C-alpha cells in the first residue's frame, strides 16, 4: 500500500512517525486523522503505538529502529521509556542511548540488515547499534551531507536517496545496502526524502504534495505494487488513500 497524508497541514509526514516491519510509532495527542490513516492500513499487521519522546512529537528524527530493536535518545523520560517497553512487542529491544546527539533518526538510517550512520559517530554508539538492532554498520555520507538519516529512506526492498547523489555514490551505496536505490524527490521536488515519507517493506506513506511521478518512483523502487504483509495471497490490492484536513 502506499498512501498520501498530512500531519496537521504539514506534508513532512516522515518527521513524525516511525514505521518498521514490526511496529509503528505515531505521535500522541494532536489530531487523530493522521493516526487513523496509519491504523486503517496497518492495524491488522503491526501495532500502532502512540508515543512521545522527551515530550516532543517529532518521533522519527529522535529515534531509530527496525524489527529487532528501537534506540531512543537520552532526552527520553523514564515514563515514555516504560510506555514504549510495554506497548511494543517483546521481540523488540528498547534501549536508551547516551549519545551526545539526540536526533538519532537524522544520524542513522537502517533496515533490518544494514545501517548507515554519519561518519563521526562514537564507537560505543556504533556498537550499541550493531548489538541492539542486529545490523552491520557503515559510516557514509550521502550527497555531501553527513546526516544520512534524513537524506535517504530505505527498507529491505529498495531505497530512495537525495536527488543530488552522484552516480558513483549511488552504486557504492547500493552495493553496501544490497538493495536497489534510486535518486528522487518527494513532496513536489523537495530534497528531504526521509522527512517526506515513511516506508517499510509493504507500505509507504508520502506527504500530500507528492506528485504522481514521485509516487510512481516510490512505488517502483520499494516494490510496493505486489507487496503484502508477509502473507501470500492472490489478490493484489492497490489503493490510493488521500486524507486531507484543516
Amino acid at each position, binding site marked *: 500500500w502506499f498512501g498520501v497524508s498530512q500531519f496537521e497541514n504539514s506534508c513532512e509526514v516522515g518527521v513524525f512517525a516511525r514505521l518498521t516491519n514490526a511496529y509503528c510509532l505515531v505521535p500522541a495527542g494532536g489530531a487523530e486523522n493522521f493516526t487513523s490513516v496509519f491504523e486503517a492500513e496497518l492495524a491488522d499487521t503491526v501495532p500502532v503505538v502512540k508515543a512521545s519522546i522527551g515530550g516532543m512529537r517529532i518521533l522519527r528524527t529522535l529515534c531509530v529502529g527496525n524489527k529487532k530493536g528501537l534506540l531512543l535518545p537520552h532526552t527520553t523520560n523514564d515514563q515514555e521509556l516504560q510506555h514504549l517497553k510495554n506497548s511494543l512487542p517483546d521481540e523488540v529491544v528498547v534501549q536508551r542511548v547516551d549519545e551526545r546527539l539526540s536526533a538519532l533518526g537524522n544520524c542513522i538510517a537502517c533496515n533490518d540488515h544494514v545501517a548507515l550512520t554519519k561518519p563521526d559517530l562514537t564507537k560505543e554508539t556504533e556498537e550499541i547499534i550493531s548489538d541492539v538492532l542486529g545490523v552491520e554498520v557503515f559510516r557514509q*555520507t550521502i550527497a*555531501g551531507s553527513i546526516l544520512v538519516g534524513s537524506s535517504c529512506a530505505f527498507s529491505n526492498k529498495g531505497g530512495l536517496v537525495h536527488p543530488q547523489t*552522484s552516480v558513483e555514490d549511488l552504486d557504492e551505496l547500493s552495493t553496501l545496502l544490497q538493495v536497489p536505490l534510486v*535518486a528522487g*524527490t518527494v513532496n513536489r521536488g523537495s*530534497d528531504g526524502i526521509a522527512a517526506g515519507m515513511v516506508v517499510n517493506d509493504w507500505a509507504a506513506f508520502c506527504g500530500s504534495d507528492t506528485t504522481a*511521478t*514521485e509516487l510512481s518512483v516510490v512505488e517502483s523502487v520499494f516494490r510496493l505494487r505486489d507487496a503484502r504483509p508477509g502473507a501470500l495471497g492472490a489478490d493484489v490490492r492497490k489503493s490510493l488513500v488521500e486524507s486531507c484536513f484543516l
Partner: protein
Amino acid sequence: ADSIRFDSSRPPRKMMPGSAPPAAGSGMFVPTQTAGTVLCCICGVSMQPNPANMCARCLRARVDITEGVPRNAAVVYCPDCFSYLQPPRSWLRAGPESPELLQILLRRLKHPLARLKVSLSGAEFVFSEPHSKRLRLKLRLRREVLNGIVLEQTHPVEFVVHDRLCDSCARAQANPDQWVAVVQLRQHVPHRRTFLYLEQLLIKHGQAALAIRVASAPGGLDFFFGSRSHAARLVDFLGTVAPIQTNTAKQLVSHDTKSFIYNYKYTFSVEICPICREDLIALSPKASRDLGGLGPLVLCTKVTNAIALLDPLTLRVHHLEEKKYRVYNFKAALTSKQLVQYMVLDIEPESPEITIDGSRYQLAYAQVARMSDFGKNDTVFTVRTHLGHRLNPGDLALGYDLYGANMNDDDMDKALLRQNLPEVVLVKKSYEKRPRTRRWKLKRLPVEEDLGNKAKGEEERRENEYDMFVRDLESDPELRFGINLYKNEDYRSEMASTIGDDVPTVPIEELIEDLTLGDDEDEEEEEGADAGMVE
C-alpha cells in the same frame, strides 16, 4: 530564451558544516562525481537534479516570474528640445534609442520591479516606428522562486510617449524675446577694436553661449539672458579680462502677493575703461607723480583687467588697476586711428635689449621722416624710441605725430608747455605687402545689427577696423594667446611664395581644425547676424 539558473552561493539543504567535499588541488584524492538523473516531479522526464527538481518546461509552465510586472508605462517627451521628463521636474535630453533614453525608461520601472523583488539583468530596445509614439523594450528579469532557483525570463514593455512642452520651451515659445537680465557693455571710444577682441575671447571661453540674444548698440554690445545668474557670470568673466566698472539696476515686472514671488528685469551696465592698446596718453603732473614719476607721455601696451602703461623714453611699465584709473580718469590724447606712417632712415641703439613683462624693448635713437614728407622735403625727426630691436633702416613704422597734431587734451597742453616732448612717438612696425588670403580665419558672434542707428559709412569703417584687428593678431603672438584661430579651407598656398620673409604670419601649429557642420557654419560665417541661440 528562458533559462533556469541555480543560485550556487546557497548550500543545499540540510548540509552540516564540515561536510563539504575536499577542494580540488588540495592534495587529496577526490573520486569523480557524475551527477545522476532524477525524474521531474511533475512530468516524469529524466533530468539533472535542481533545487526545485522540476524540469525546465514544468518550471516555465508553472512559475511566471513576470507576474505583476507592468507591461505598459507612460513617458513624457518635449518635441521642441527632444528631452524626456524625469519626474518631478527635470528634463533630460536623449536621442532615439540611446543609452540615456534607456536609462530614463528603466528608472520609470525601478519601483514596480523592486516591490516585486524582481531584478533586471538586461534590457534592449525593440524597433518601433519613429512616429508611432511608442517605445518598446525587452527586459530580462530575474527572480528567485521556490527554494533557491533563480529563473530568468524575458518580458516586453511598451511605453506610450505623451507630448508636452517642457517649461523652458513653453516660456520660449510664449515670448521668444523674453529676457530677464541684460548686460550692456559699453566703451566710449570711437573705434571698436576692444569689442572685436572681446568677441573673440567670449567665443573661446563660451561665455556668450547662454545669451538669448546679442545686439549691437551705439558704443557697444547688449547681451540678453534668461536668468540673472547667467548675466552675472558674463560680468564676472568680463571683469577678469578687461578693466570694467559695473552698475546694476532692477525693474519690477510682476509680483505674486500670495507667495512673495517677485519677477524682476535686471540690467548690468558695464563700462570698459576708454584706454585701448597703442593709445598715447599724457599724464597730469599729479598722476605722473603718483605713478612714480612716469614721464608725461605714456603708451598703453596691454589691456587686461589692468592697464599696462609704458614710458617709451625710460622703458618703464606700470600696471594700473581699474580702481586706481578711476581716480585720475585720464583719456587718450591720440588713438591708433591717428597713427601716421614713417620711414625709418637710421637706427642707433642706445642700450641693450631688455625684456619687460614678456615683451622685448630696446632704447634707440631713430631718424625718421613722415611718409607724406619723404621725397618731398627734408623734414626729418630724430627721436628716442623703444622699438630699437625691431626697426632697421628702410623700414616703415607707425607712430604718433606730435609735431603736427592738433590735440584736444588739457594734460597734453600742460605737458607741452612744461617740458620738451618728442615730436614723434613710434608705436609699431608696419608692413607693405599683406597676403590676400590667410591660412586662418576667426569665428564671429551672431550679433544683431541696430539698423536704425547706423551712421553713413559705418560699414566701411567697421570693415577697416576688422582688417586692422586681423593684422594685429598676425603680428602679435601675445594677442593671439587668448583666441582660437581656425584653419581656413579656402587658403591657397601659392600665395605664400610672393610674400617677403619678414611678414609675420601665424604658424600653422597655432591653428585649430574647424568643425565642419555643413550648412550651419557657412551661414554663420556669411550672414553674421542671426537671431537665436549663440552656438
